[in-house]
């Protein structure tokens, strides 16, 4: 399975790296892959190139000018930006698309290689870059300050081809905003960067309502210089959107989105159950019911093709077994690939609308389970499963536990686990521990933790950076745990919704490529990110300052008043002082205001 997929990828890579003089400056492709449990993965990929000479001369054709001038202004060599939402359910969906290279943790993630002579200059350029990108993408990237920026040592390697001389004064900076909510206002500028905007081609299917309703979605922008052998160096910009749609949910009509129980005759029941009857129903396996059309799940049909796209790259591909039938619009041609599980569609340039219908498999009605397994391509097993959670209780201390599982029966996995923690989580490095499930500790010969890079936090200035290189033996589960202490923030450092808690960025796991070679030159074989965590800190009562003012004032007033009176007043017997009874006061008041009252009464009378 994996071989087939990598074959497909390889053909794509070969296509891309082939020396091309004029054409193929831009291509786009949509890959649709039905997943188990009534899910559909849609991967949009847009790739545009510009030659480095044209880029440096400020002539922008496919490369967007708005992003180009930001990169030039900030001296950026390579840029990676991610907007993500939701959780990839690896247990049922399998390996991530693009081997996890095009996804980020929940929120916004940005890393870039900047050209600078000193660290201070790099920081200044980084600030320029984040501020400019924040304006371009309508995201709060400008909040990536010193406390949210780290300089990873082991986890990232540049993806592009950089000349060795240029790499000496290049700085890698990494910033993450786990709290950012990705939404439509980030999609609109993303689409504006495309040469065909959202007006033609596969980008017409993208719609904020559907995209941000997905179970998981990730928008990525990658800019890197690529020097094909024997050709001119180009700056490549790749824009990727991956989303996992819940088919049932997507098929809900836009005008009536409230979920309602379906009427009894529409229920999909498992008729094989012995207790199945008119009034009992066991829900059938979702796999059996994958039928959809493009307009149902995306809310609209595809409007032609982008005329700039490379004609050699088919715009739409579908990964279902070849046995399933698919209906398509006239004018498009289907090409089944050799691997028997994918097919692509060539769309004639003058096709105004492209629609694709994947009907319910005919055979499933009669034969049931046995055939239903074939309806969806079986997902590939990922190299590693990771889960992270908090342990402990109370407002003072806590712990983090990451469960890492190597599903492979025969190969060990070597990877780098990177955490960027906010400064108010003070970790105790001596408590970091890795143990294999069912064993007391790690063996001395082949320790689980190979190498640790740790940069401690500085209060209010810098977050913790922890990079751990680990090696996990085959078919084993490893618990990586460490403890931390929560520090108390200042009154003004709490966000408006302080009781919600503080987001802790996802851990980045980079699985190292065991033997990088020409066919798989990437440094990382697979990337994955854990979910982000919500850390609750002791939250003060925010009326506290006024309470403190009032309380201390009262205390001071009491003490001072009493003391001052004792010192200053003269104490005499009760009958010697001025008369202070109710009657006396009445008398005095009458003396002062009596005349007035009488006058008023007289007037009234």
């Amino acid at each position, binding site marked *: 399975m994996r071989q087939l997929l990598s074959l497909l990828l390889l053909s794509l890579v070969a296509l891309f790296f082939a020396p091309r003089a004029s054409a193929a400056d831009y291509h786009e492709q949509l890959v649709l892959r039905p997943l188990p449990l009534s899910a559909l993965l849609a991967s949009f990929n847009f790739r545009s190139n510009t030659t480095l000479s044209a880029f440096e*001369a*400020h*002539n*922008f*054709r496919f490369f*967007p*000018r*708005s992003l*180009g*001038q*930001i990169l030039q*202004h900030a001296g950026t060599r390579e840029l990676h930006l991610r907007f993500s939402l939701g959780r990839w359910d690896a247990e049922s969906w399998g390996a991530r698309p693009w081997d996890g290279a095009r996804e980020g943790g929940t929120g916004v993630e940005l890393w870039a290689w900047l050209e600078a002579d000193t660290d201070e200059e790099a920081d200044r350029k980084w600030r*320029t870059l984040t501020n*400019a990108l924040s304006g*371009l993408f309508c995201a709060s990237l400008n909040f990536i300050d010193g406390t949210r920026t780290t300089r990873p040592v082991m986890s990232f390697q540049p993806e592009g081809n950089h000349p060795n001389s240029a790499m000496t004064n290049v700085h890698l900076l990494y910033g993450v905003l786990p709290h950012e909510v990705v939404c439509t206002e980030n999609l609109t500028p993303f689409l*504006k960067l495309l*040469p*065909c*905007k959202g*007006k*033609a081609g596969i980008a017409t299917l993208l719609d904020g309502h559907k995209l941000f309703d997905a179970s998981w979605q990730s928008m990525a922008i990658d800019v890197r210089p690529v020097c094909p052998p024997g050709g001119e160096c180009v700056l490549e910009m790749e824009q990727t959107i991956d989303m996992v749609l819940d088919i049932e949910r997507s098929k809900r009509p836009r005008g009536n989105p409230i979920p309602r129980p379906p009427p009894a005759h529409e229920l999909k029941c498992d008729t094989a159950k012995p207790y199945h009857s008119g009034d009992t129903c066991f829900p059938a396996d979702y796999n059996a019911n994958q039928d959809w059309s493009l307009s149902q799940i995306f809310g609209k049909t595809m409007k032609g093709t*982008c*005329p*700039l796209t490379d004609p050699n790259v088919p715009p739409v591909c579908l990964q279902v077994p070849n046995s399933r039938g698919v209906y398509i619009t006239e004018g498009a041609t289907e090409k089944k690939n050799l691997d028997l599980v994918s097919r692509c569609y060539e769309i004639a340039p003058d096709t105004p609308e492209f629609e694709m219908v994947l009907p319910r498999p005919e055979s499933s009605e009669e034969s049931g389970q046995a055939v239903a397994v074939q309806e969806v391509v079986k997902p590939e097993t990922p190299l590693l499963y990771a889960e992270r959670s908090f342990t402990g209780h109370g407002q003072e201390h806590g712990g983090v536990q990451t469960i890492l599982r190597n599903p492979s029966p025969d190969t060990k996995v070597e990877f780098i686990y990177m955490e960027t923690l906010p400064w108010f989580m003070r970790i105790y490095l001596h408590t970091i521990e890795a143990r294999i499930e069912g064993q007391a500790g790690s063996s001395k010969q082949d320790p689980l933790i190979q190498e640790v890079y740790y940069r401690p936090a500085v209060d209010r200035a810098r977050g913790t950076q922890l990079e751990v290189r680990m090696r996990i033996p085959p078919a084993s589960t490893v618990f990586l745990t460490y403890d931390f202490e929560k520090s108390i923030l200042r009154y003004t450092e709490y966000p408006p919704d302080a009781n919600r808690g503080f987001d802790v960025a996802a851990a980045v796991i980079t699985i190292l490529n065991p033997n990088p070679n020409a066919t798989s030159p990437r440094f990382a074989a697979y990337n994955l990110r854990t979910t982000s965590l919500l850390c609750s800190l002791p939250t003060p009562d925010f009326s506290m300052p*006024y309470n403190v*003012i*009032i309380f*201390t*004032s*009262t205390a*001071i*007033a*009491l003490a*001072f*008043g009493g003391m*001052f*009176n004792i*010192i*200053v007043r*003269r*104490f*005499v*017997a*009760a*009958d*010697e*002082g*001025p*008369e202070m*009874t109710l*009657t006396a006061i009445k008398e005095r008041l009458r003396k002062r205001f009596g005349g007035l009252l009488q006058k008023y009464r007289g007037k009234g009378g």
Partner: protein
Amino acid sequence: MSARRPLDTGALGGASSSKNTTDAVISDNAAPCAVADEPSSARKQPPPEKASDVRRRTYVIVSFWLIVLLLGLPIWWRTTTIHRANLPLDEMLDWADGKACRPVFPLRISIRANSLQEQEAQNLLRLTQHALDDLNDFSGHHLRLQLSPPAAEETHNGDDGAALTIRLIPGESTTSTLDPYAPVLDITYPPNSIPSPTSSSSSLATYVAGQLRSTFAEEQAIISFLLSNNSIPSEHRPQGLTPEAAESLSKRTTRSLKYAPTYHLTFSLFTSGPLPSSWDIEAAIDEFMKPVLNVLTPIHNFTIDTQVQLYASPGVQSQILSKEDLSSFINAAEWPLSPSIGGAPTINFIVFVGNQTILAAPREPPKTEDGLSTSQSWLVPQWGTVYLLSLPSDTTHVSAATLRQPLLTFTSHLLSLTGTPQSGSLPLRLSTLARIRSADLLLRASSTLGSLARLALALPSISIPGSVADGVSKTMTHLRLACETLGGPEGLAHARIAEAEAERAFFEKSMVGQLYFPDEHKLAVYLPLLGPVGVPLLMGLLNEIKAWRKRRRERAERGAEKKKE
């Protein structure tokens, strides 16, 4: 009432007896008898206080008040005061009102008359200067003639700082031509028109003066317009600016961009459909626009970028664009025309490929000299230019030759966007531009200073950091230098620095975001503390003063009684 009193007093007296002096205890014991004796008489008088006790109480109150006044108040003052750097407010307002500098543009014009005798030339110069002075009504703009030595013939024009060189050449009749490539005015004259040394007027001199005046008329008008729009006192103000002329000048100045040392030019090709997707813009710029940009280099720098945008729908969909549609044609929401991030203002030049045409308003027939401009392109004030290009629908590539007309239009619009005057030869227009810009910058920096001064006066609670005072003093230094060297290149440089410094001082970050601390908050913080502490202090002081006055009165009474005795 009287029946209850003994009980009352007994209880109270008992409670306070432990704290009280022995006198009080004694009086306490005696109280019931006193009430029984005189039920109607009010109260018993407490025994007289010792003088030392009275004095001690006075000392206590005085020392408390001394601590509050000498220690508390200064500390409170020091910790809550707002830092305000000293600004030379009067001087700043003087600059804004134009009292500090009288903008004078001395223009030196050299006359080169190689065929004339020294004596004759001097005489002609004197007469021409007279004629000029008679014609000129605006003291700020002063033309001064000088005779350039014949030896300077070979050297390049203008190297001696003269704004214009007049070359007098003997010829058939009196004619004048402006050299299109150099600031030189060629005047031919018939030999008999040379004034004799004794004559007091000469037609040639009047002619030269008239020519000079018409050459510099536009510059003079613009400068006087700039001055009249500022708060320059009226005695320096020129008269005779007709309302129509002022209106056209104000149109032109609002059209032109604010001065900046660098402009960013963005050339965009927008198409309503998928084609064309490439253009030869680089070659076209090199060929049609670079020459003008190179000439402008002493005043402005330019950076250039270009982009191609497909599927761009304009803000107006109708086929024929009326005058009203033009303002909404640019689809600001969708077209990626974000300004450059480097800080230089961006000038946009847009070629829009589509089949839309502009409907010229019937009442305003297209002007002859820019008839093209009314039918295919228009200028957006302070922003840039749009050019509608209609091409066959299957064009995929726009060649440099097709871009010739758009780029020539852009070039002429660029000149008017930068505020270049319209008449005269190019070198003259550019040197005029430098003078106009320096006057403009000078006035702008002065008015910024004035605004800052007024702001500082109007908001007493705004804090003024030291950097602002620094910027102000730098601005004033450079303004003074600019004022002295107005008209020359250093004048422009100084005015530029002064303007930048003034803007920086005015837009100081810590001043823009003024800390908002409402009075209610102050009340909420101070009242709980100062109320309970202040009231006993104040009451103690008042009681003490009352007691002191009573004592004084008693003493006076006692003294009077003694005297009577």
